């Protein structure tokens, strides 16, 4: 038996969160949260290549919060199996030998449950190394689930024990602290985003959002591309500081995006009638949306130059006006998780581990909570930007 936070099906809570959540935010992490602290059976590692892991730290990701607060699109409901233990950003310790990795090894996990993990023939995505594009995430000997942390069979980082397949695991170098290692998964996502953005040397980039996704994307863009000017949209003082430390050329407030981008790129600024949202003719070569809100997506589409590329790195939650995509012939690209076969011919996690070792990431995990203080933890994560925190994590050992 183990202690875990479990996400369960509750249409009533889902509807309550939808109806009242925006007016009473405390509902979302309080009574309306379809989450409970339970003592349940440990997940089993009884298939080839699977092993048990004891999570050490487990991050709270935007997609976890989206799920808990009912903001996630129902699109994803077909890709999960309830009840499940959330938590896919983990650093943990192997409780069993796992092929070449001995028991006790500290590991981080690529959470996508691919063909290899599911014991099925590789799909086109997996065969070509694009493991994040796996088409078999609902079949095989594992319950449906796009990732560990959304699957009823695997457990997740918000529990004392979880299971993972060897194909998902990367050993953590000895010199890398737990606080840095737990950032590997989001950093791998940022690596994937930076490489998917296909930035030519000197091109201008806008990163909308300076939460963990935006900040790590900025870091990866600076690290892995020859981007010219990187402008980051940041709301809060600490985010502005970190954006600069991670390589932003300049930082603008959300209500300054059009002015700032126009200035940086020499674009023309147009204001449609009847208070419709303004837009630029010209703008950045590449824009990365790291928020997922309608507001943010609308903005990035409107400040990207004709023929430019818009990369959706934040989980989109609501509809945006696609007029600019049509009129400016924008290339709209999604980036989801990370893959083993990135354009630089390396698994994103390997690159991410290197970045985690040398980047200025001290203090990025700004708060750690035991599982039983989960409401506080989620509250903190909900307001992380305002509170000057980038990443809130569960300290599973303390639970």
């Amino acid at each position: 038996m183990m202690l875990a936070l479990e996400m369960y099906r509750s249409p009533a809570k889902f509807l309550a969160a939808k109806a009242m959540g925006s007016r009473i935010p405390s509902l979302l992490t309080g009574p309306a949260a379809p989450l409970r602290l339970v003592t349940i059976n440990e997940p089993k590692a009884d298939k080839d290549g699977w092993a048990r892991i004891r999570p050490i730290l487990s991050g709270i990701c935007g997609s976890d919060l989206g799920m808990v607060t009912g903001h996630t699109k129902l699109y994803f409901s077909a890709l999960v199996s309830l009840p499940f233990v959330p938590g896919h950003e983990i650093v943990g310790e192997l409780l069993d030998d796992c092929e070449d990795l001995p028991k006790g090894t500290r590991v981080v996990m690529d959470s996508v449950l691919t063909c290899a993990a599911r014991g099925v023939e590789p799909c086109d995505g997996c065969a070509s190394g694009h493991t994040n594009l796996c088409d078999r995430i609902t079949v095989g000997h594992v319950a449906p689930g796009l990732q560990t942390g959304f699957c009823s069979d695997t457990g997740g980082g918000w529990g004392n024990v979880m299971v993972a397949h060897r194909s998902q695991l990367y050993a953590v170098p000895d010199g890398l602290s737990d606080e840095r290692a737990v950032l590997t998964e989001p950093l791998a996502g940022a690596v994937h985003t930076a490489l998917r953005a296909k930035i030519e040397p000197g091109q201008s980039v806008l990163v909308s959002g300076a939460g963990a996704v935006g900040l790590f994307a900025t870091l990866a863009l600076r690290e892995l591309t020859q981007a010219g000017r990187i402008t980051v949209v940041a709301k809060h003082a600490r985010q502005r500081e970190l954006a600069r430390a991670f390589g932003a050329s300049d930082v603008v407030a959300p209500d300054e995006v059009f002015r700032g981008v126009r200035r940086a790129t020499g674009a023309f600024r147009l204001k449609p009638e009847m208070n419709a949202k303004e837009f630029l003719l010209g703008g950045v070569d590449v824009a990365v949306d790291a928020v997922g809100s309608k507001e943010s997506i609308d903005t990035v589409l409107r400040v990207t130059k004709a023929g430019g590329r818009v990369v959706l790195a934040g989980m989109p939650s609501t509809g945006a006006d696609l007029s600019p995509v049509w009129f400016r012939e924008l290339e709209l690209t999604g980036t989801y998780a990370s893959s083993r076969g990135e354009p630089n011919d390396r698994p994103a996690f390997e690159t991410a581990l290197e970045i985690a070792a040398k980047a200025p990431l001290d203090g990025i995990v700004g708060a750690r909570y035991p599982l039983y203080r989960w409401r506080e933890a989620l509250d903190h994560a909900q307001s992380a930007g305002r509170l000057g925190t980038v990443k809130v994590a569960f300290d599973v050992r303390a639970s």
Partner: protein
Amino acid sequence: MSRPGFVLEVDDRTPPLLVHNGEGFKLERFPLGTRVIYPPESLPAVRDVEEAIQNALLNPLESEPLPELLYAGMRLTIAFDDISIPLPPMQKPDIRQRIIEAVLTMAADAGVDDVELISANALHRRLTPNELRDIVGERVFRSFYPDGKLYNFDAEDRDNLSHLGQTRHGEDVEISKRAAESDLLVYVNVNLVAMDGGHKSTSIGLASYKSLKHHHNSHTMIHSRSFMDHKASKMHESAWRMGEVLTQHVKVFQIETSLNNDIFGGPLQFLQKREWEWSIKDQASFLATKRALDIAPPKLRHKIFTETKSHYGLTGINAGKIEPVHDRTLEMVHRQHLVEVQGQSDVAIMGVPFVGPYNVNSVMNPILAACMGLGYYFNSYRGNPVVRKDGAVILYHPVDYEFSQLHHPSYVDFFEEVLSESTDPATIEAKFEKQYAEDPWYIHLYRTSNAYHGVHPFYMWYWISHALDHCGDIVWVGANRKTVERMGFRSASTLQDALEMVSHSVGRSPSITYLHNPPHLLADVR
């Protein structure tokens, strides 16, 4: 007979004194011993303006009379000062209208039919048709504007600029092609303050950025001591050198006018008077105006001030060759504005009013407020600044965070982006000026809308560089703290607090001078 300006020393019988404070006023009690510089009262105006104009055109200085310079088949261009002077704008008919009508009448008599009129706005915003009409009058507007013969100068129209050469200092002289290729350029000037006119008219008013950047830069402006004394101003020296080159290529017939200090009339008449001479009516007017302004919504207050027009009287008009004409003009300007002041003081106090050269029919944004106080008023001296080196300047203005996106789009970016990085004129010039000057959006707005050129806020900042270099402390009374801080200054709630704040640099009992303007004055500091 008008009384000259004078310096009052505040004693215990001195009433509270009026201080301009943006779109409003304050009555302030100044510390005992404060020197208050009052401008001279208005000089008597020329009685028959039409006759004075005719006389100037027919009896010019070191030039043939205007009719002798006009002939059939010639290209005649009339350039005139734009909306930035006089301040506040003049009641109709504008003096420029009367002069232009007289010139056009003579041109018509001579059979001249190739005439164009250009508003010499350099990098200032284009005037709207109504603003042009206000300056040149209905008849001239209707005759020339529809055919495109009356227009704003466009410093970014590369096809219509002429490079006339370089000065002996290597400064480019590039002006309006139409003006450069005219058989005669008549320049119609309004000389509000000593800074205006002379070679500054054409060499600056019809010049491109390529030409202007030689004197509108931090180095030149920091060494202009002051702008109001063209013989001690590096900016004017440069303009004068350019004028030498220009007049080798272009025949210029300069017409300069000087105005008296009749700025405020009607219910604002009390602003023209010295406080202890306010009648009961003046006191009632002040109280009523102040109360009304205090409770009026900002839009209404702005409208009231925007619609303020001044009933200036003409004190002189001279025409002919640029230099002698300008010398005569300056004589009159000095007679109207000069006040002799003995020695400098530790602290200078100035009230920044509602209007400056660059916010006519617009908003005085923080940069323009700084320019008005620390550029124009600080430089309203001859000889030495009113305040000693490393002394303090205290200014009154709300300095609200308010910008006109129509008129000052690049100012917003300058404030947000440039000033957040540095407030040092030389640093921002090196790092940002070129970007702003060449920004295609600003150029587009300058050329097609009513926006100041992208580089204009830089010029405003250079304008205050002498004050920034000279003063140890700059404090604004009653100003928005955030906007003032962004510009590198400090804000105080009251004059007493401001004096407290500057006491570390000027001591507890500093000598204080209050420049009681507008009406305009020029402190002749001995």
